[in-house]
């Protein structure tokens, strides 16, 4: 078995050596910003019951979790996400008021083999629980905008979507294919769908442009002036309002953004670097997740993925050499 002395399991990500200093520096800046904004840092347990994730049906497949049987004979998993344990913490610590949590640590999800993807994700982020609507979104966005500049990455783009908009489109179109079409931004499939369902009027026009619907605030304004459905309109007006309330308006919008976690209910955001094939920051509003804990509390949060950030930094350096 000597060969195993030198290899690491395929599931692990390689030791980070050269970039530890910049990682720690980055983390330090973020921690300072988070705690200054009154976010309390929490260290969360490494193991959770599989059922915590499973019962909530949040979109993390069971087979993606690293599972064990514990001494009770129950299934436990390596932490696969920070939002759920933090929601539980909020509920069990019996808080009803606004709570601000921040965290740094790893989550573990099985990704495809031999694809150069890692199974450990080093994340850092915040959850703002108990603050709904615009004030919550504004606070969250401002913290992203403030902290993102400390990553040392150039030409980042923050893109905002709306789970409300997405869900309403699904209702209006009422076809199981629509999510798939949005996910892959298929112009061909969208055309077919419109023909098959004989969709007409403003909705047809809207659906035709959604696949290419990444743009600035003007795109949102244009669409919102044409939309006839009240719910759709409301979801777009919310995005406009958020935009107007932010000082830093370097933002983009994506009408085809499909919630990456099932629990998202409203605004969603993703931050992209041209040097990373994955978003370096993701987040969104999840107002119904607490229902699973029998509480009706709005919440919003985001997390940075440091592996993607470090990778992007390396790539950026290489291209500029």
């Amino acid at each position, binding site marked *: 078995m000597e060969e195993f002395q030198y290899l690491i399991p395929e599931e692990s990500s390689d030791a980070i050596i050269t970039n530890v200093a910049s990682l720690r520096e980055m983390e330090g800046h973020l921690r300072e910003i988070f705690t200054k904004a009154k976010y309390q840092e929490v260290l969360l347990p490494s193991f959770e019951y599989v059922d915590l994730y499973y019962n909530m049906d949040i979109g993390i497949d069971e087979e993606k979790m690293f599972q064990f049987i514990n001494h009770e004979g129950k299934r436990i998993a390596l932490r696969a996400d920070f939002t759920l344990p933090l929601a539980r913490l909020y509920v069990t610590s019996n808080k009803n008021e606004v709570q601000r949590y921040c965290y740094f640590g790893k989550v573990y999800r099985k990704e495809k083999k031999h694809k*150069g993807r890692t199974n450990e994700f080093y994340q850092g982020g915040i959850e703002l629980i108990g603050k709904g609507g615009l004030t919550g979104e504004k606070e969250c966005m401002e913290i992203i905008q403030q902290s993102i500049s400390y990553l040392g990455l150039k030409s980042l783009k923050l893109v905002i979507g709306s789970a409300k908009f997405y869900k309403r489109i699904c209702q209006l179109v009422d076809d199981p294919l629509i999510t798939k079409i949005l996910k892959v931004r298929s112009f061909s499939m969208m055309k077919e769908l419109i023909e098959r369902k004989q969709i007409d009027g403003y909705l047809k026009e809207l659906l035709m442009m959604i696949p290419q619907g990444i743009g600035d605030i003007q795109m949102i304004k244009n669409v919102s002036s044409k939309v006839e459905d009240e719910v759709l309109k409301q979801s777009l007006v919310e995005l406009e309002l958020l935009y107007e309330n932010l000082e830093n308006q370097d933002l983009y919008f994506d009408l085809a953004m499909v919630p990456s976690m099932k629990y998202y209910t409203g605004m969603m955001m993703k931050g992209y670097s041209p040097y*990373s094939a994955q978003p370096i920051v993701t987040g969104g509003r999840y107002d119904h997740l607490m229902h699973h804990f029998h509480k009706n509390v709005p919440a919003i949060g985001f997390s940075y993925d440091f592996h993607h950030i470090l990778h992007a930094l390396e790539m950026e350096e290489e291209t500029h050499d």
Partner: protein
Amino acid sequence: MIRIAITKGRIEKQVCKLLQEAGFDMDPIINKDRELLIETSDGISMIFAKANDVLTFLEHGIVDIGFVGKDTLDESDFKDYYEVLDLDIGKCYFAVAAYPEYKTKEFKRRKRIASKYVGVAKKYFNEKQEDVEIIKLEGSVELGPVVGLSDAIVDIVETGSTLKANGLEVIEKISDISTRMIVNKVSFVFKKEEILKIMNALERKGE
């Protein structure tokens, strides 16, 4: 600069022809020798790769756009890309094929299915709620039933002449295949205009 990966062979020829007809400079590619990376005067950098590798390059953000058959997309477990356009070329389909007796034969054991496309075969029989044994073959899958290794095959059917020549026939069609234009998700954020330009050019050709 837009970076494109094209599946070598037929897809490469067809797509380059479409791009040329749409007004892109394809001369350096049509006249290429054995180079694997070529830059054109339109600011397109093109690499030629095997179908699965096109996906891998796209996944890692090495290229912005990929041209690849739906068969490759269906078989791959990587789904994190935009599939913006069906080029409507290279059309064929996945099917179950066997000797005609297969349809009426009663099996007292698990059926054996030979295929190069193990994922597609698994998914199909799972949806049919049939438990079958899948045997992977790398090529000339028709040999499966011919030599008695398997009861049927799951394979790509174009004209069906190979099947016919070996006494096999299509038992059931599974799904359509054609060439697709896929796009890296991050590229779509940063290079949307350039990508749409290529897409629109190809879409108009298809009409």
